[in-house]
């Protein structure tokens, strides 16, 4: 009898246990408006950070339909990032990464002003990292939480002077994790040693970002920055060889999925910058589950033949059943495609 009762109690506890493990959606960690967090002072659209909210950038950037991005990091008071040997950081709970996506009205003339589209927050909650998208209002005075995402008409004049119109997509809460995922857990992508290890133009002058963070007492255990790796800025012709720049571009745009432990692993294609196996990078690798994404081509990469390489075919497409990445892109990243084409053209020569 007592045994039965014990079992019954255990079973009664089960739903509670499950609720504790999986339920209570982490959306509870979000505030309804961006201003509720108090990251900025003055007119919020100007993004003047309050003390403790530090601007930064990353050397190689994810392409997001030519949107420009402002990035900030906010650590809880008196807490530090712990440097990890693999080049990532251990973030204290309640760390926040802030990223605002915006478009200048005219990429050739910044005086014409900009339009803020969305601000994404990554918050290191007691349940791990969670991502929340905030969409800016028309008046540019506030951004509101939109967990189910949103579509917005966007227009700008590009570097070539052409008017571009398209429908921009703010990701939903689930899509945030679609990219920021490793072994089922959400992780930040940008703030890694190799993407931060370069100078940033601070109000009080230029300085290496990691050194600055060290001076500000934001990092523990950081070795000398000269000994640390650095990913080139693929847009900067001087920053590395064609191969180094192309691998940097592919790493930041593809490897969040195409990496062991991430959803793109089903394909057997691994595009992280550390990968050295030619087949796993895609060289003469047949597709596995590409469907019409294969474009009638046999291999991900055919050295010297970019036009026969599935990688280029999928980068050049905007058809949702073909294009890569699957999300966050409505336009073709022309300059990126050119760089990867050059890399493939020169391969093995």
């Amino acid at each position, binding site marked *: 009898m007592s045994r039965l009762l014990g079992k019954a109690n255990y079973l009664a506890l089960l739903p509670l246990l499950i609720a504790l493990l999986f339920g209570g959606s982490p959306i509870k960690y979000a505030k309804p408006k961006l201003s509720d967090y108090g990251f900025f002072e003055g007119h919020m659209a100007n993004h003047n950070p309050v003390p403790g909210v530090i601007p930064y950038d990353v050397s190689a950037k994810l392409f997001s339909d030519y949107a420009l991005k402002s990035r900030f990091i906010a650590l809880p008071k008196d807490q530090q990032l712990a440097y990890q040997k693999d080049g990532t950081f251990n973030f204290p709970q309640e760390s926040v990464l802030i990223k605002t996506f915006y478009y200048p009205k005219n990429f050739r003339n910044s005086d014409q002003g900009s339009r803020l589209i969305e601000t994404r927050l990554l918050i290191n909650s007691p349940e791990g990292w969670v991502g929340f998208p905030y969409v800016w209002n028309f008046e540019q005075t506030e951004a509101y939480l939109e967990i189910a995402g949103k579509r917005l008409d966007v227009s700008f004049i590009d570097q070539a002077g052409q008017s571009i119109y398209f429908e921009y997509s703010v990701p939903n809460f689930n899509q945030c994790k679609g990219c920021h995922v490793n072994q089922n857990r959400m992780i930040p992508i940008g703030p890694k040693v190799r993407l931060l290890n370069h100078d940033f133009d601070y109000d009080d002058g230029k300085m290496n970002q990691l050194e600055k963070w060290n001076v500000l007492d934001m990092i523990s255990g950081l070795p000398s920055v000269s000994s640390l790796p650095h990913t080139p800025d693929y847009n900067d012709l001087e920053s590395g060889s064609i191969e180094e720049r192309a691998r940097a571009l592919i790493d930041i745009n593809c490897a969040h999925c195409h990496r062991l432990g991430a959803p793109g692993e089903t394909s057997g294609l691994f595009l992280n910058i550390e990968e050295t196996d030619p087949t796993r990078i895609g060289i003469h690798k047949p597709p596995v*589950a590409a469907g019409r994404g294969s474009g009638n081509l046999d291999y991900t990469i055919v050295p010297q033949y970019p036009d026969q390489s599935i990688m280029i075919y999928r980068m050049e497409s905007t058809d949702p059943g073909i294009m890569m990445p699957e999300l966050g892109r409505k336009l073709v990243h022309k300059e990126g495609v050119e760089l990867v084409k050059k890399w493939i053209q020169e391969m093995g020569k």
Partner: protein
Amino acid sequence: MAGVLFASIEKNLQTQFILAEPGDTITIPEGLHLIRGTLSIEGKSDLVIRGKSIDQSILSFSNQDEGAQGISITNSINITLEGFTVQDTKGDAIKIQYTDGIIFRHVKAEWTGGPKKTNGAYGLYPVQCQNVLIENSVSIGASDAGIYVGQSNNIVVRYNTAYDNVAGIEIENSNNAEVYENHSYHNTGGILIFDLPDLVQKKGGNIRVFNNLVESNNLFNFAPPGNIVGKVIPGTGVLILACSNVHVYQNTILNNKSVGTGVVSYFMTEETIKDSLYNPYTADVHIYNNTFDRSPGLPELGYDIGKLLAVKYGRNTPDIIYDGMQDPENSAGLCIQNNDDARFTDLDIEHNFEEWYSPFISNFSEDMSPHNCGREHPLTSSVK
């Protein structure tokens, strides 16, 4: 049926998927609902997604402009999908990944424009999952596989219907699968059991394919070239590629014009193997108590294997075709018993393909006695 509802439920459904709590049932209302972007479920447990019925609640992605799938479910536990249809997605219809416990019941994945290479690759598509049940469901028109389970373990696929796909049902790099009482017809290939290289889950096994009706899988192969399934010859009933520990029994395999049942190694694909952990051979494959029938007629001639069979056998292609590539490291061979008067050929590709013309002058072995493996299979097997 209610009228066409433009996107009105898209945001509502997606919001419910995001806010769902364990034990919730989320209802897909009756009607034809146009959806523009992938609907996603991430990190949830114990959810039921239920429509009014398979033909009354329809999510149409014909205007999809975002995301590669219709529905995407990841990192979840115990999810049941029941009683609805997903139509015309740009990529896969319903993809499930990293999920333990997924049930498809009375769910249809469909491309409504007939078989076309612009259709999405997979219909019902669990990959890297545990404990998969797909039953009473339907897939029509997938340009790769209609019902596809890949890199997964503990799988039941039963009472389903698949037609107008390249592959009707496919189990790939998966373990402990039972595929039974399905009707797979008018695909390029009816039921495919594959192990492929370069994948994260390397090896499948312990697969039972029984009591299925596999007929008239003679559809042209409309898979986009480059995909491995694009190599499947039209007229394939059951095909076992590079797998071991597979039992195919009590199936009715009718009028598949080229290869009623094929047991072949990965060498038949003529792809180079770079994966050092991959085993390209078949071994421990058992084919017994099946019924084969095939009206006389030529195999598909657009493929090398079809030409070869036509030259050797004319209008009477054998029912069971083996490439002779037994795994040298595995003592369990191919076992064939009690398939009525099914005819057999061993292509012996290791010895017969040294010169391009040699297969045409060689005599393939039609002797089944080396494959009468001693152990009698029971005439009826226990169905769980």
